[in-house]
């Protein structure tokens, strides 16, 4: 029976809905202490003193730990995937409000919480910088020295710099943009901005470290167990195999749980006190952990007389907050596609990762691409309007198609951009008349498409184990956080070995058992790990055949595995282990031109079309229809794939319409779900989700990643629809009702007061 393409429910759903699924939050170890974090109250300052006496003296408190205590254990207690810039607890300086400064350990988490309130810290405050464009000037330096990590192959070129807040700058030069602008019929320029927002998985960050003799076991809600192992081992100067990282199911991740988050802190605390230590963040504390980059994007396009895009320049400023996290990679990888899915001969891209005194920013479902699509698809729509041509026709005319080089120089392959655009236009009825509303309720429609390069080069390793009765295990370090990866991999194994997907036991990540994987991020798992899983299963199949030959069974016959084992070993005994590693080819971009003919093993493509109704008296926007379409190649599990598409779109809808962290003097003023609003069930518009017919020829059974594609088009599709409805352009997210009413009033010549 074919396993690939089957619409089976996710393998773990029953365990989840019956409450049997394991989560790190539920885990308690004997002798475990609870840690609570004391956080900085100033955005930038030198630590003058930390008074922990009252906290230490509170009955029930086991120990209070500061950065200096950790420095005695780990001389260089800095971590991070791109830069080793983040201290486990603040050292010398604090760089954002909410930065961990001390930790209290107690057997009762309530006691630890109370003790945290008894700690007093004094700071010599320093000037702070919050805005990404302002941070381009070296007036206020967040870091005195930059400390590149050199961990990942694609970030090896990072050089330590002084006297700047620029963690990474990526520059792409294709053709001659200046010359093309000079020759263009029209040159059109806009600036777009996005806000700071965050992931908010329903399971906040949580980690437990259990110490041994120069060994640690870490139980954590994390998307990158292999990286955590390597990074914790590096901090302690240990071999990899002294750190064991176990990850059960995640209650969502969305990029918030990549690389090291709480793990270094619990590891250091556990080694200091020689007892297991657990830290579980509250929902509110997530606002001080990791966020999505705010951006400013200046985009300029030149158009010739025929309405063809001849040049585009992009300057993107990424507000990375106080620590780089993976921001430099966001800056570079998204930089490749900042000019959009259009065939433009002359492109200039400048992309800057900046330090500021905010909560750090990292990866969030789309890895920077939603910020870019917001700008380039709003801009593209405005160009079409200025030229007086249909926005969909304008896109079609300029679309990047398979076989043509993308801005980076990499030739587009298996990227169904045109098909996605067509699907959106058909579903929304672009060429058909619709009710434009009347009176104070006006309707409009908008469309937007985007694409993304996959993170590269990255490695995945898989092991397939066939037991003597023919039952099958799969070992992999991909983390199933709700996206359905366990199910998809089981389907791939089942397809190769001719067993039902439901009968494949998928082993949860445990770095003592499951092999290396770069991480569950950037929609990479289905393509990378999926390929490794397919190859490992094929390896197992080949070895089963060899075993059959060894056992003297005639070639070309189809004995069940159980009989092969029995024949070979005389009883139900033995294993067949298939294994495979996969790492795609990659060519790093030229440091001068930013060009490379192989920046990605595959392209993600997604888009959205929206129909909205605007209340012209209040600015309220009602989304009447949202159509999402994406190219995920040939889906392994179409049902799960569609929920990835709709889930991503709903998440981006929140970033589009309501979610924003408000900052006042460096303090987040709405760090709670009461005042930071994610969409509720009442905010979900009628949606249609379409996977266009496509195939990723290099992917496992023609498939590729999809987790982020649904985010790409949502924001600009809605802004474009609002423009279509009422003739105003919103250039900054989120699109609040107030922003829309203010724009309407400016247009009417009756602007609202500021306050």
């Amino acid at each position, binding site marked *: 029976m074919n396993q690939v393409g089957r619409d089976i429910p996710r393998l773990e759903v029953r365990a989840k809905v019956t409450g049997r699924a394991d989560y790190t939050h539920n885990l308690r170890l004997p002798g475990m202490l609870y840690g609570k974090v004391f956080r900085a109250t100033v955005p930038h300052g030198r630590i003058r003193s930390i008074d922990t006496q009252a906290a230490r003296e509170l009955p029930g408190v086991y120990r209070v730990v500061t950065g200096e205590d950790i420095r005695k254990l780990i001389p260089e207690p800095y971590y991070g995937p791109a830069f080793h810039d983040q201290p486990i607890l603040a050292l010398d300086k604090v760089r954002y409000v909410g930065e961990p400064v001390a930790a209290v350990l107690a057997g009762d988490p309530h006691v630890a919480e109370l003790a945290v*309130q008894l700690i007093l810290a004094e700071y010599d405050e320093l000037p702070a910088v919050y805005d990404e464009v302002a941070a381009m000037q070296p007036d206020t330096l967040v870091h005195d020295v930059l400390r590149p990590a050199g961990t990942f192959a694609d970030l090896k070129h990072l050089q330590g710099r002084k006297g700047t807040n620029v963690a990474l700058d990526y520059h792409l030069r294709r053709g001659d943009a200046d010359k093309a602008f000079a020759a263009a019929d029209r040159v059109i320029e806009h600036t777009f901005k996005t806000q700071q927002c965050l992931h908010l998985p329903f399971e906040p960050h949580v980690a437990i470290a259990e110490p041994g003799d120069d060994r640690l076991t870490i139980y954590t809600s994390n998307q990158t167990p292999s990286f955590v192992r390597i990074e914790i081992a590096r901090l302690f100067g240990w071999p990899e195999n002294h750190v064991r990282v176990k990850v059960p199911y995640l209650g969502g991740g969305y990029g918030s749980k990549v690389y090291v988050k709480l793990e270094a802190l619990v590891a250091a605390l556990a080694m200091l006190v020689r007892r297991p230590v657990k830290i579980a963040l509250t929902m509110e504390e997530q606002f001080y952990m990791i966020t999505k980059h705010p951006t400013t994007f200046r985009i300029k396009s030149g158009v010739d007389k025929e309405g063809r895009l001849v040049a585009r320049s992009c300057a993107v400023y990424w507000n990375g907050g106080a620590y780089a996290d993976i921001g430099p990679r966001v800056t570079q990888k998204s930089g490749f596609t900042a000019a959009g899915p259009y065939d433009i001969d002359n492109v200039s891209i400048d992309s800057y990762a900046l330090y500021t005194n905010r909560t750090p920013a990292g990866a969030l479902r789309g890895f920077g691409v939603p910020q870019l699509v917001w700008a380039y698809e709003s801009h593209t729509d405005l160009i079409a309007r200025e030229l007086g041509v249909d926005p969909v026709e304008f896109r079609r005319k300029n679309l990047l198609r398979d076989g043509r080089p993308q801005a980076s120089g990499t030739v587009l392959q298996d990227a169904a951009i045109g098909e996605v655009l067509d699907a959106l236009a058909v579903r929304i009825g672009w060429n058909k008349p619709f009710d434009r509303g009347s009176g104070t309720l006006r309707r409009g429609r908008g469309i937007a498409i985007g694409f993304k390069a996959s993170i590269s080069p990255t490695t995945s390793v898989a092991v397939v184990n066939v037991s003597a009765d023919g039952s099958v295990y799969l070992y992999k370090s991909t983390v199933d956080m709700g996206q359905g990866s366990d199910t998809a991999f089981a389907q791939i194994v089942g397809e190769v070995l001719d067993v039902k997907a439901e009968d494949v036991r998928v082993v949860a990540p445990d770095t003592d058992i499951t092999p290396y994987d770069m991480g569950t991020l950037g929609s990479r798992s289905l393509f990378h790990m999926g390929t490794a899983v397919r190859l490992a299963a094929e390896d197992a199949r080949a070895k089963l055949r060899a075993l059959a030959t060894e056992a003297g069974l005639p070639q070309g016959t189809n004995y069940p595995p159980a009989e092969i084992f029995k024949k070979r070993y005389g009883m139900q005994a033995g294993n067949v282990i298939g294994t495979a590693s996969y790492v795609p080819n990659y060519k790093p971009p030229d440091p001068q031109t930013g060009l490379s003919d192989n920046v990605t093993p595959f392209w993600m493509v997604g888009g959205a079309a929206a129909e909205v109704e605007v209340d012209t008296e209040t600015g309220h926007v009602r989304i009447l229809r949202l159509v999402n379409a994406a190219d995920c190649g040939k889906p392994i599990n179409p049902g799960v794939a569609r929920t990835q598409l709709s889930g991503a779109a709903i998440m981006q809808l929140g970033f589009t319409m*309501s979610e924003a962290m408000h900052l006042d003097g460096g303090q987040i003023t*709405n760090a709670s779900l*009461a005042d930071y609003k*994610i969409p509720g069930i*009442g905010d979900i518009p009628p949606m249609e989700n379409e996977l266009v017919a496509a195939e990723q020829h290099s992917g496992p059974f023609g498939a590729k990643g999809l987790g982020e594609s649904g985010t790409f088009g949502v924001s600009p599709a809605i802004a474009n629809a609002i423009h279509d409805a009422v003739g105003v352009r919103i250039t900054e997210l989120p699109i609040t009702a107030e922003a829309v009413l203010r724009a309407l009033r400016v247009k009417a010549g009756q602007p*609202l007061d500021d*306050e």
Partner: protein
Amino acid sequence: MIPFEMVEPSSLQEAVGMLDPQDPAIRPVAGGTALMLMMKAGVFAPSRLVCLHRIEPRYSRIALTGSGELQIGAMATLSEVEHDANVAARLPALKRALRRLSNPRVRNVARVGGALAHGDPHMDLPPVLTALGARVTIVGPKGERVLPLERLYSGYYETVLEKNELITTATVPSLNGRKSAYMKVTLRSADDWPALGVAVSFKLQNGAIRDPVIVVSAATEKVTRMTSTEKVLQGAAPDDATLARAGDAAVAEASILADAHGSAAYKRELLRVYMRRAVRQALADDAQRVQS
């Protein structure tokens, strides 16, 4: 959350006795939906909570009196009020407000008394019940007193209740043909706290508005009755011009505050618009009811 003492008195009098007028760390808890949020956020750390779940069942009853008044026991859950046949038949604005008040899980737990006594200006029941002319019965160590609901609120999260007083009943008079509506404006998500609430009730006599009660909430420091706006409406036909004047009057009268929902300037525009929409809704709601 810091551990605390929880007591469960079996009578109202016992409960009153367990409260302390001088100690803000001792508080009564009914449904706990608001208090628990404050405790989790660390803004309230009780030494003792006086749980009211076991007091006499009569304080949970919803009953119609002979004179057509609806008496709502303070310990009735919001969903009991929502699904009460008399509420549905006689107080459509209240029913409608409850349908959009938070979510069913909260409504199944939250109590009327808590929703009135909490003093959060964003809550829905205070404005709608104020516009409906409700009064509250309050019991303390010195006995019982009755207060019009509009006089309960003295400031942001502040009421005139002593710390050892409890609301026992909310009494809503018969509409007697009055038209009413409550409009709640949520901006950031459908289930958000309102940025603005406008509640109205009035009589319509010979095409003119009589005895209007206009209440604004959420955008103001406390639930506020808009007496100047009422004067603009008094005796006027509810036409476009009147409603525009009423909107202007409301904007002039209300002290609108900026917060995370939006600027004061924006909320003033909302008030102007929703003043008109609330009156229209009251008229339309009534027409619908006559048809059905």
